[in-house]
């Protein structure tokens, strides 16, 4: 490749928009031609200078709310409803009785279903068990395998909308194995993995919707032991096949560190 062609393609080369064969040719030329190489350095530094120095103007804080206010409201998108005109309860005709009865039956039926539905904690406990079993089964216990809390904690940055407390608890007999993203209670949660002797423990953490503080509760399902509570606005669910007393010990440690570091 000659100098003329090189200088033509240099902008696209600097922008990483060239095809592989041309990149190769240009690389070769730049290594042998000092003049073109200095043009390359010059363009690269100019790019870097623009990126670093040119002002990126941030939108004024109230612009978003003004745009939201100016956008048509949800109800405006359904003009059909207004055209139907008023309806009076008194003017119903007997043709409607069938559908009304049917919907009454459906209402009672669904109320019955609702009452028969397990409590939220029961459902969540089953979710936690499935998640724990799955993490063991597919040998996918950790996305980030590290005993270093300073590696595991930053790994969650940007993956979650909260920052879980991560500490290696080797000195207390619970070495940190790693961390993982999981999905519970209709949201992404942090899963920390600790080990105690040969048992693995999953610690699920996510922000509490309502209850800021609840006492420790325990459960046993399918041979697994669960411990859960809320602390400083976060929910904690621990699960393992570990002895319940040892699991409770870990729960106490985690509870103590959450109280030390609010949030």
């Amino acid at each position, binding site marked *: 490749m000659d100098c003329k062609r090189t*200088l033509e393609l*240099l*902008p*696209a080369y600097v*922008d990483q*928009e060239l095809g592989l064969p041309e990149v190769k040719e240009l690389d070769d030329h730049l290594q042998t031609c000092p*003049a073109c190489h*200095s*043009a390359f*350095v*010059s*363009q690269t*530094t*100019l*790019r*870097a*200078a*623009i*990126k670093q*120095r*040119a*002002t*990126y*103007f*941030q*939108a*004024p804080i109230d*612009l*978003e709310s*003004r*745009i*939201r206010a*100016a*956008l*048509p*409201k*949800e109800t405006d*998108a359904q003009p059909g409803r207004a055209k139907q005109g008023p309806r009076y309860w008194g003017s119903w005709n007997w043709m409607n009785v069938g559908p009304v009865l049917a919907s009454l039956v459906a209402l009672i039926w669904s109320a019955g279903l609702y009452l028969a539905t397990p409590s939220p904690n029961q459902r969540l406990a089953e979710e936690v068990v499935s998640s724990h079993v799955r993490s063991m089964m597919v040998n996918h216990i950790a996305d980030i395998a590290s005993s270093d809390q300073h590696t595991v904690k930053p790994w969650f940055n940007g993956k979650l909308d909260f920052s879980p407390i991560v500490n290696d608890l080797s000195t207390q007999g619970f070495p940190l194995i790693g961390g993982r993203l999981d999905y519970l209670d209709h949201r992404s949660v942090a899963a920390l993995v600790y080990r105690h002797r040969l048992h693995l423990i999953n610690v699920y953490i996510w922000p509490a919707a309502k209850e800021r503080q609840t006492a420790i509760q325990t459960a046993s399902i399918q041979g697994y032991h669960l411990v859960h509570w809320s602390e400083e606005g976060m929910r904690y669910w621990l699960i393992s096949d570990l002895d319940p007393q040892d699991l409770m010990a870990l729960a106490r440690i985690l509870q103590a560190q959450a109280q030390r570091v609010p949030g």
Partner: protein
Amino acid sequence: MKARRFEEMTLPHLNAAYNLARWLTHSDQDAQDIVQEAYLRAFKFFDGFRGEEARAWLLAIVRNTAYTWLRQNRESVSHVPFDEEFGDLNEVSSATLFHQPDNNPAAILARNDDKRLLDQALAQLPVEFREVLVLRELENFSYKEISEIAGIPIGTVMSRLARGRRLLQACLERMNLGVT
């Protein structure tokens, strides 16, 4: 439903929209008006949006809104005769300028503490070069995305970026001469 989906897809790109409008108009108030109008237009066209890159789609509308505004308010802006403004700058001289180590932008900026120097130089560029540089360097759009936003062929994106950088370089050099 539509309004909420629209807000979720477009409002995260509000800064990008404002930054582009601000660089095109040089005015905070005008940029705010343009962005607001662009969002209302975008909402009207939202049914036709088929879920490509929302940021590029939105910025194309911001850009068109800004250009309409520029045409209405500043007749002279649309076609600045940049060859006259930067009169003696031609391909040969700019190519040689690139080859002089003391004139590279890093050296100029290092000699000059004023952070506004680069802003001033970029602001002086004709709008068609300024916009491709802002889209490329501040928003990291690819040539293809820039070609869709600005409605120009990819080859033109490349040549405008090359030319814009040469003009910027020359402008920095002239300002530097004026300062010292």
